[in-house]
């Protein structure tokens, strides 16, 4: 038997189409108005021409680009290396902090102290303390490269954040999962490895990626130690020309670098939310 939509359905669908067309037009209209206001306010500002010349100069952008890109290559290496170490250390610290073994008590204490301190210390201070303090000791066997010490500072700070995120994930796994694993004869360590950690890491992937995005952008702070990264390179260009466009170039490149990861994080969060709605579990 073939189905003929009733007049009632057709009427309903027509009303919905009308409503959706109306929303589209409203969105376009309001965007135009807001955009117009922004353009008028900014371009009408008394100093607009000077700001445009010193921040948005195509000429200076083009001439600074190669140097800034060279610097960005350093940022890229620093962030990748730091991310690897941060994930390893964060995981280790989270495991130590959630362990129950009495032998690990001193390690637990140190780990708790470490996370407390480095989550509270501003990154800039850590950079200065490590980057200037360690060379200041004048021990010949200690490294004194700005890039290396800057990376160490990033790792120190971000491992503390990431450890707390992972620890939260471990504690969010249903205790019944641990009980079920122990009942099968798994040891404490096996339970952690096969049952708890895989579930915990899945739970915290979005906030974890969020911390990595933040780490990527903060890799620009190693410039305060004199490492010639994108920001430092832009600074050098600016010092020669008294034009700030190179900073904007560096900023745009940083944003471009983090966008893929932020989009991926959003996508993953949305997918997990959908899955959670489906089964009410995770």
């Amino acid at each position, binding site marked *: 038997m073939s189905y003929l939509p009733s007049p009632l359905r057709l009427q309903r669908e027509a009303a919905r189409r009308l409503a959706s067309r109306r929303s589209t037009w409203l969105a376009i209209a309001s965007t135009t108005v807001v955009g117009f206001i922004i353009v008028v306010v900014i371009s009408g500002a008394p100093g607009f021409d000077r700001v445009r010349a010193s921040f948005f100069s195509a000429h200076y952008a083009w001439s600074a680009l190669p140097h800034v890109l060279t610097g960005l290559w350093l940022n890229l290496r620093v962030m990748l290396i730091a991310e690897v170490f941060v994930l390893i250390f964060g995981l280790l610290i989270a495991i130590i902090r959630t362990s129950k073994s009495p032998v690990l008590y001193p390690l637990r204490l140190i780990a708790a102290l470490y996370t407390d301190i480095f989550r509270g210390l501003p990154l800039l201070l850590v950079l200065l303390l490590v980057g200037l303090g360690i060379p200041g000791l004048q021990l010949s066997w200690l490294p004194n490269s700005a890039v290396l010490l800057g990376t160490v500072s990033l790792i120190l700070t971000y491992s503390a954040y990431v450890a707390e995120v992972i620890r939260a994930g471990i504690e969010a796994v249903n205790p019944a999962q641990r009980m*079920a*694993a122990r009942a099968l*004869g798994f040891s404490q360590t096996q339970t952690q490895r096969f049952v708890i950690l895989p579930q915990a890491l899945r739970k915290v992937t979005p906030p974890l990626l969020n911390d990595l995005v933040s780490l990527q952008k903060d890799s620009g702070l190693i410039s305060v130690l004199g490492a010639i990264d994108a920001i430092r390179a832009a600074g050098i260009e600016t010092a020669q020309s008294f034009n700030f466009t190179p900073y904007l170039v560096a900023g745009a490149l940083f944003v471009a670098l983090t966008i893929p990861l932020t989009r991926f994080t959003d996508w993953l969060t949305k997918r997990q939310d959908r899955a959670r709605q489906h089964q009410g579990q995770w």
Partner: protein
Amino acid sequence: MTKLMLDIRNLRKSYGDDLVIEDLSISLAEHSVKVLIGASGSGKSTLLRCVNLLEAIDDGQIFLDGEDISEVGVNADQVRSQIGSVFQSFNLFPHLTVLQNITLAPRYVHKKSQADAQAEAMALLSRFGLSEKANQYPELLSGGQQQRVAILRAVINRPKVLLLDEVTSALDPVLIAEVLALISELKESGMTMMIATHEMGFARQVADEVLFLHNGRICEVGTPEALLTNPQSPELSAFLTALRGAGRL
């Protein structure tokens, strides 16, 4: 003379001032099935949790296949690997497929090769009509299927005793039937089991002996027929009347 698989002697367990199990003794012969009935809070679940060492006991002894598993310094992981436990809430591992759930303990606790573990698991799954679910995640299974997988996850390790704690309480009647059919088949194949349940019809079907627990003590023992139709104690009479009133008998 059949051998005793599980021998609980004068077990006592309390949480703080709350005495949950008082001087309780049960012996379970190989291939036999004992069913624990009783109101919530009568100590059934605690008893099962004491047997697989998920709870520390206060006093008494527990023997598994002749070995004292309540001794100080006993290797609890090793003891638990010989006891199967299934819970009310299934507790399948959500990040693993059905097949991975079932083969995890054979591989890492019983040190079997992946191929052997998988072959055994697939044989079990197809025997109980679950083979096409092997590569699915638990979330996609019905409650009854999840619980059957949870039972197979325990059975594959050839436990000396299988402990079932209210395994049908979270299921609707249609799904309960398929879980009970699986347990009946396990009984046929000679599995030694101790079962805590509220399903009296099922108790009648599989139990060699029914134990009625009341306030942490065994109040009455007997065949399912005798206990369910001819209760001796006022406590059991009251319990059965309550069940009948709720339409559960």
